[in-house]
């Protein structure tokens, strides 16, 4: 419960109807991904502009009240559950598109705008904002920047951070910081834009974003390839990249993932498929046609079983919807899902899948693997039933083995179930940054920084 005098003070800043404290409303914002993992916030505050955000933070900081910025809440890793109580700062009202600057290929937006809405507007000028975390209809720009969301097109286009030219950020004490700008080279000294991108709401509240736009590609082609074994698929990926072809996307799904998709799996895939690739190429029509021919030849040379080229936008959407549904379908298939990120040199992707398969059978577990294989990003995902307690130790074991396998192949591994990293230099540096900018630890105090 928030003190009445504080409720009044916040109401004077944002207006009484934008300080929500009714119990039923608080309950709607108490949760995140996991059922049962929830904690009631004390208030939900909906600021209208930067000045209001600044005044809210100044007061919260003086009173040492935790603040959790929230976009649409689609992060899927409990990033916005108000674990310490306090304020949910809802940015939905700040959703304007402030400017599209076609000369500088830039747009300035407020954080609450949905990515799909931004794309709809810039499309009118023949431009695109390429990052697509698979949730463009539900993710806000603020959430994407705060998470540095990766991207199903990142092989060619990079991740969110490559499209952020400048930010306006309100710091914990209410100071308004402006970083970067529309000039391509706009940094002297520390690159604060990059520091804030991916800061997960722990260093400040993003209130404006200048994004970089790209001309829309002339043509787009998408194909789906099915293989009888993943080694062939992995080798095909390597061969494509070695041939200097840069697809916009190169996505991989193993048989566990395809099975979990059920009716959402593309209908053209034969049932005995062990691995599938989704490949999208875009650019100048001539080049795209040329690349498609080369890719087809490479796929044939690697024993591909089935190649389907999307002829219509609807078919293309069907491929993408399948990939976008991967996480949710896996989550549905079992009651516990430990999803991890293994980032390995892409030449080793097939080896990694191979290792995951043997780790799964050794530990008697189901482990799915899918991801942006073109970037070497795989998501080994351990699935099991909570009712069998013995499986938890198997799963932890498998987690360690996957981590070791990734490191052995020259990659890195992250999971949301991290080992203690305190004392490491990296953690020290991150904590130093966090606590000098937010000495009272009010911004998203989920201990994320402590863990590294």
């Amino acid at each position, binding site marked *: 419960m928030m003190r009445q005098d504080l409720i009044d003070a916040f109401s004077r800043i944002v207006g009484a109807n934008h300080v929500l404290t*009714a*119990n*039923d*409303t608080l*309950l*709607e*914002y*108490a*949760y*995140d*991904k996991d*059922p*049962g993992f*929830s904690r*009631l916030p004390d208030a939900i505050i909906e600021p209208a502009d930067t000045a209001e955000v600044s005044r809210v933070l100044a007061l919260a900081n003086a009173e040492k009240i935790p603040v959790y910025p929230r976009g*649409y*809440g*689609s992060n*899927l890793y409990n990033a916005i559950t108000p674990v310490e109580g306090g304020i949910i700062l809802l940015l*939905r009202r700040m959703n304007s598109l402030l400017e599209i600057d076609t000369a500088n290929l830039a747009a300035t937006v407020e954080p609450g705008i949905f990515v799909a809405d931004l794309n709809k507007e810039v499309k009118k000028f023949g431009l695109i904002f390429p990052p697509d975390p698979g*949730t463009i*209809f*539900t993710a806000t720009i603020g959430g994407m920047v705060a998470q540095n969301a990766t991207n199903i097109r990142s092989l060619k286009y990079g991740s969110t951070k490559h499209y952020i030219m400048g930010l306006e950020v309100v710091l914990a004490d209410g100071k308004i910081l402006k970083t970067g700008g529309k000039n391509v080279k706009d940094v002297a000294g520390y690159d604060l834009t990059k520091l804030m991108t991916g800061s997960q709401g722990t260093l400040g509240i993003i209130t404006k974003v200048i994004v970089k736009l790209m001309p829309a590609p002339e043509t787009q082609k998408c194909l789906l390839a099915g293989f009888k074994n993943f080694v062939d698929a992995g080798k095909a990926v390597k061969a494509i990249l070695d041939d200097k072809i840069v697809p916009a996307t190169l996505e991989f799904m193993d048989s566990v993932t395809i099975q979990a998709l059920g009716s*959402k799996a593309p209908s053209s895939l034969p049932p005995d498929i062990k691995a599938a690739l989704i490949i999208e190429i875009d650019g100048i029509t001539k080049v795209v046609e040329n690349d498609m021919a080369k890719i087809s030849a490479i796929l044939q040379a690697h024993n591909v079983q089935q190649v389907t080229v999307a002829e219509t936008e609807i078919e293309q959407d069907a491929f993408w919807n399948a990939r976008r*549904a991967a996480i*949710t*379908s896996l*989550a*549905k298939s079992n009651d516990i899902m430990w999803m991890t990120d293994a980032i390995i040199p892409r030449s080793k992707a097939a080896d990694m899948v191979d290792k995951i398969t043997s780790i799964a059978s050794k530990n008697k577990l189901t482990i799915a693997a899918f991801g942006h294989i073109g970037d070497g990003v795989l998501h080994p995902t351990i699935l099991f039933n909570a009712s069998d307690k013995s499986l938890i130790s198997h799963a932890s074991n498998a987690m360690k083995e996957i981590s070791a396998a990734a490191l052995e192949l020259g990659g890195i591994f992250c999971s949301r179930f991290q080992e203690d990293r305190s004392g490491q230099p990296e953690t020290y540096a991150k904590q130093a940054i966090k606590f000098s900018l937010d000495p009272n630890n009010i911004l998203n105090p989920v201990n994320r920084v402590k863990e590294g």
Partner: protein
Amino acid sequence: MIKDKELLRDINDAISNCMKCGNCMEVCPIYKELKTESAVARGKLSLMEAVLNGNSEITAGFDKRMSMCVSCKACTAKCPCGVKADELIIRARQAAVSSRGLHPVKNMVFKLLKNRRLFDFSLRMAGLFGPLSFKKLPRPMARLLRFPMPGLDRRRVLAPFAATPLRSQYPEVIKVDNPKMRVGFFTGCTINYIYTDVGKAVINVLKKNNVEVVMPPMQHCCGIPVFTSGDIELAKVFAKHNIETFERYKLDYIVASCGSCTMAFKKEYPEMFHDDPEMKERAEAIAKKTYEISEFLVDVVKFDQSKLGEVNITVTMHDPCHMARGIKVTSQPREILQSIPGLKFVEMKDADRCCGAGGSFSVAHYDVALKINNRKIENIADTKADIVATSCGMCRMHIIDGLERYKLPQDVVHVIQLLDKSYQVGAETTVKKSKVS
């Protein structure tokens, strides 16, 4: 209170399937307007979860939030985890109903509905005196409400009640010369009391195809409005009554000309009796025979296309939620429209998006229903069509209301009315031709 929680408890598993991904937001018409968490399925589900966990009670706030849903099923169709949010919301209302009674306006309407004779009588009275309470507008079937009626927004255009209900205008059995089958016609309330023109068209078209039509006079409202409001017990009374009524006749099929009514017979009745094997079996026998009229004409009757005459208009189509996602009938009405010579069919954007009517939702939440409706009207305007075809009386009324606000000239009719028109033109031209020859 304990019992109400139990009502929710058996849906616990269903709720925990929700991974809070928020995909349902993308399609929820209420969210588009309100942009609050309580508008979208995800927020409602977490509120139910809180009640189940004992973190909250069924309060007036709970009630209010659960009422913000038009039961359009869009979230359920979109959900990657297979959560049937629309049904869960109805269950939550059921819990709320038993703990605190219905929304006052609805309560009044449903008290009326409970007593069939009283209902029939008062709606007939409304029909007879309709012209007094509805301002006439320059469009057939639409009147602006002149006197405030409790709970109805006065800005709203409503269709007047018909002077004589459909079923009083026809005999119980409508014979044809060479009947190839015998069907029972479930008229539903909107068609019996308001849009009798649709009922007439259905009868004409069936007759043209040598189908004998039976209209059991004892039929009652399908019960969907009370069902979606959470009064399951009352809905079961209606269901049982309708099942018994139709069982009394020897019928090859049962047809209805409204998506919601058809869904009631085909899906909701068997569901309602899931814990009563005998009734369930009877409900299923009825369900198997039931078809929506377009579906029936295309899939079963294979309607006669040789007698169709030219209707030179441009038509667009709105798919009612219960047609698109409830019984999944969208291709058949289009097939009928496209079979009509001279008719030009244009698709509108988001044809299957809710129009905001949502059964009695628009009675209790007219402002939100209006906003949802505005998007529909703009999409209609973009098509430049002369006429909007649809398959539900509530949608028809709500879209006409919107067109009136936008001062647009289009009329809204049932798909079958256009088919009926085409048969009429066909008959006239044959007459003319035979006169010439």
